[in-house]
């Protein structure tokens, strides 16, 4: 398995430990090493690594850089609420505190480059310096000049520095309109089932044998592999369910080698885990508690999405109903539903072609405040004065995210809204106020 990493300029032992720590990622690590070259050689200015979540990108780089003791700065861009943090972090890890403190308040890119050059002229790089930026997709939301500058930072600062960007998104989605220096692309493919098995089996429980644990992992993967390939999640699930797996063993019913019986015991349990704890319907702590008391009573804990009932004030309910009607009925049908002597309107002739498709398939449409109120007044059964609290209820429905404001916030004279609740939800609401919403929906006519 251990196709040895080889690269002149590094100690053999260290390369050995590195390859031990990077199971199933030897190819990628070897590729990276050869790109990096020998420590004193200039490396390629920028490398872009992409691959799905937990496919080992950060891990490989961290292990390589740490084990081989290369000068590096690792920054997760999600933390960089301003670019200043990025610059600071880089200067700090290359040149120490004093350099970082040279940065002015809210520094620009050129400040950073200036200070970097100044510092690197004092202590020029003997080895390639590496800047690793995790979550690089967020760079796109940052200043427009940051990404192109980082890609050719080597030229800008005239130092032996390489920027490595890590992302879950392909490079094509990064490329700025104005064009930029193309980094080297390196893809980290997902782990295959066999690889996952290999990696997961490594962290076995010390009190059980290797074979036993790897049989367990095999069963676990059999259930979860189709829905989840995230190593972190799988490891978590393995840890959560292992005690249940060992239960028959502790009771002395089964031997370690009797995989079939163990499988029979654990499989329904794992299936249940897939529906609950994997989706975070039930928290891991609760899951563990459930395991302990499962013999006594089953399924006492309800998942998060089981609680959908929302209590609302009386008029808020009607406002929400009115909003739903306004969102899902074409405006021209209002007359038919809310005016007493509307005459007969045939469905087929009455509507334009595009309105014939179900409005529920098209999703909610925006409507102006006036229409909402007009429908509200005709829907609610008593006379309601247009008081301030009616209006404030609309805005509180917006903050509760039951309505969404479509128009821009500072357009105060004619705000537009969309109804953001589901059909089931609104049916439940209208049942509590004895309102038959189906009768008022154009789609169900």
């Amino acid at each position, binding site marked *: 398995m251990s196709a040895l990493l080889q690269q002149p300029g590094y100690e053999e032992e260290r390369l050995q430990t590195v390859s031990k720590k990077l199971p199933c990622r030897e190819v990628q690590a070897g590729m990276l090493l050869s790109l990096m070259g020998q420590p004193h050689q200039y490396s390629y200015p920028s490398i872009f690594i992409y691959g799905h979540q937990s496919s080992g990108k950060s891990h490989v780089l961290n292990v390589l850089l740490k084990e081989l003791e290369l000068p590096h700065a690792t920054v997760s861009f999600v933390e960089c609420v301003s670019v200043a943090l990025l610059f600071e972090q880089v200067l700090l890890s290359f040149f120490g505190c004093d350099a970082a403190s040279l940065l002015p308040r809210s520094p620009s890119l050129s400040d950073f480059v200036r200070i970097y050059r100044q510092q690197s002229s004092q202590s020029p790089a003997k080895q390639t310096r590496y800047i690793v930026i995790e979550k690089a997709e967020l760079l796109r939301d940052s200043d427009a000049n940051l990404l192109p500058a980082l890609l050719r930072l080597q030229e800008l600062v005239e130092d032996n520095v390489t920027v490595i960007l890590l992302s879950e998104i392909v490079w094509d989605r990064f490329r700025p309109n104005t064009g930029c220096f193309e980094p080297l692309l390196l893809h980290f493919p997902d782990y295959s089932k066999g690889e996952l098995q290999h990696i997961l089996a490594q*962290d076995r429980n010390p009190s059980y044998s290797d074979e036993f644990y790897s049989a367990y992992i095999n069963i676990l993967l059999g259930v979860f592999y189709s829905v989840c390939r995230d190593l972190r999640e799988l490891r978590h699930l393995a840890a959560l369910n292992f005690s249940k797996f060992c239960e028959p063993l502790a009771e002395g019913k089964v031997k370690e080698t009797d995989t079939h019986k163990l499988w029979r015991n654990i499989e329904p349990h794992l299936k249940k885990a897939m529906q609950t704890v994997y989706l975070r319907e039930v928290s891991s702590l609760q899951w563990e508690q459930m395991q302990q008391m499962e013999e006594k009573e089953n399924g006492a804990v309800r998942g998060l*999405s089981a609680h959908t009932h929302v209590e609302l004030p009386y008029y808020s309910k009607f406002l929400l109903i009115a909003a739903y009607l306004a969102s899902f009925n074409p405006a021209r049908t209002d007359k038919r539903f809310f005016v007493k002597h509307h005459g007969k309107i045939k469905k087929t002739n009455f509507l334009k072609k595009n309105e014939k498709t179900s409005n529920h398939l098209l999703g909610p449409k925006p409507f102006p405040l006036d229409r909402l109120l007009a429908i509200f007044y005709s829907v609610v059964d008593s006379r309601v004065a247009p008081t301030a*609290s009616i209006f404030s209820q609309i805005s509180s429905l917006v903050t509760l995210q039951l309505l969404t404001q479509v128009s821009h916030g500072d357009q105060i004279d004619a705000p537009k809204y969309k109804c953001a609740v589901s059909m089931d939800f609104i049916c439940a609401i209208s049942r509590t106020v004895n309102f038959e919403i189906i009768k008022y929906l154009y789609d169900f006519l």
Partner: protein
Amino acid sequence: MSTSSVSKGCFVFKPSAKKKKTLSLEDHFIHGCEGADESKTRFNLCQDLWDQIKTDTELLQDELNTKILDSLLDFTRKCSSTRQQSDWASHMRASEIPTAALVLGVNVPDHDMTFQSLSELLRQSVTPHVASVQAKECGALKHLIKRVLESTLCDWYTMNTKKSYSLTPGKKRSSPVKDDLQQPPIVIIFKDLEAFNARVLQDFILICSRYIERLPLMFIFGIATSPSTIQHMLPHSVSSLLCIELFQSLSCTQHLATVIDKLILTTHFPFKLNGKVMQVLISIFLYHDFSVRNFIKGVQLALLEHFHSQPLSVLCCRKKEALLNVMQLGHQDLERIRQLPSFKRYVEKQEPQEQEHLLTDDTHLKEVCRRLIKDLRKYHKHYYPTLRCLHTLTSSLPRYPLGKQIRELHLICLEKNVWENEEYQSAMKLLKMMAKDELISLLKKCAEILQHSKSKNMKSALLLLEAMLAKFKQLDTVVAEPPPPAEESITSPVKNLQKKMDLFQLQKALLEMNESRRSKKLSPFEVLRNEALQFIDSLVQSHLSPPESQTLYEVCYYSSSATVRRHLNAAPRTSIQAALNSPFYYLQNDRLKSEDGSVSNAAPDICIVYKLHLECGRLINLFDWLEAFATVVSAAEGNDPDSDSFGKVDDVKHARFIRAVSELEFLGFIKSTKQKTDHVARITWGGC
């Protein structure tokens, strides 16, 4: 407090060399009052009463919240303890951020108090590091991090670290921690999860999860709607970083029920609300906001208004004080008492000689007042226990003829004589069919309620009731045989009557009932049951009469529902329209008075323009409008209608017109349109 007091208060001060004194609350209160002499005592009474109500409600709130807060505290403790385990499983599993999803209901204004007591409790018993953040302060990730760091880490920073200094938020948090194991968790409370920007929240959670292994972080999400919002806001990749546990708080209607129980249905506070005011407050709660805090604010407003507008409210206090205050009433106040409708009614019932005494002799009146006040207190002492008894009996009846909640029954009783109500009759009928066990358990509950009361009448009622319960018990022991099956045959057809049936069936059922009744003599249980219900009925009739029937009820009852409604449930549109239609209503200038509802031509420009625009259709020609305006204004200036300049548009009138029109546009009555040149469009309906 009404605004009139403010304005009047300002005018009282003459410009003097002295420094301008800022008005205290008390001055504000006193200046608008009628009968300014005792207004000070009234103010103090009001203040005392409010303070008491406030502390009581706060206590109540804390009590109601204790359960959920306790479980939350347990959760935080548990989380901080589990992270210190170091066995294989806890090492292997991904470290998630413990998160409590606290579902609080849509009454957002009430949440503040809950969060406040929560963070106080957390500070006291779990951890000093508590940060609560609100969505409106955290538009961007930067601000959120800043808020959290500010409120949690300032003290910690000074406490734990003066050694390490670095600027990144992550490093700041990570460096000082490792040495001590018994670390209190850092709790971050998101007060209104729904209002947060989902992106900001996701990024924040991502950052936090990077440090969770080094830092004991913990979240509390305040959720107003339902827990599934978490799943709407956070993708799986983020929510998998959290270990979410759900906590459901008390529903706001239950909360209101307890508040009403402890605050309104008690003799503890002399101040009362009459039926209409109660109705307004409750309907604001049910229809508009579900907010208990606003309900209490409403009570506060009523309290203030009562003491401010009713001079006789000096008597609205504890018994001893009230009796003292009666003796100190001046002649003017006694005249006011004589003017009270309830007192007039009382006088009419007296002998002619006594009548004269009451109307002329001040000292005699004072004596009578003392007695009447005592009577009023007695009335309350009897009213509430009886109300509760009636409620326990009727609240479990099918279809709730007298309401499910005690507040509904209370409202009925406040309005009129409850026993004349049809619903009351039907409830009594249903009670007459009740089975033995049920009835006995209900009567036992009633007895328990009566036990708490200290008044003589209630005690004697309790004795009677207990005697009756004893008799019921005797039935059990003496007549060992089970209750006759015939009883069921009587009750069942009556129950059937509640269902829908056609006339023929009904007739048949009624006939059957009659027969079975005739054929059967009343069993001893039935006799006793009727007796018990008669007793309850008499109790109700003697104690549950509405407060309006009591003499001097005006002293304690606040009755101006219109004021409360106007203040709490403002109608901006209506008041704008009122102002434009009849400016006299707000400006109080005699020249603006007009009888037939038309606007006098001396009214402010905007009123004239508004009035004229009502006469137009959907599109208004600006030039015609201007001409009409100029004519009206010229008439107001007293120009001779026959002169040449009458109705002519000069620069000043033009400017005034334009200003008025743009004011109307600002108020949202018209808008510019491109349909026709020189026209504007009306946005409102009606008028012509």
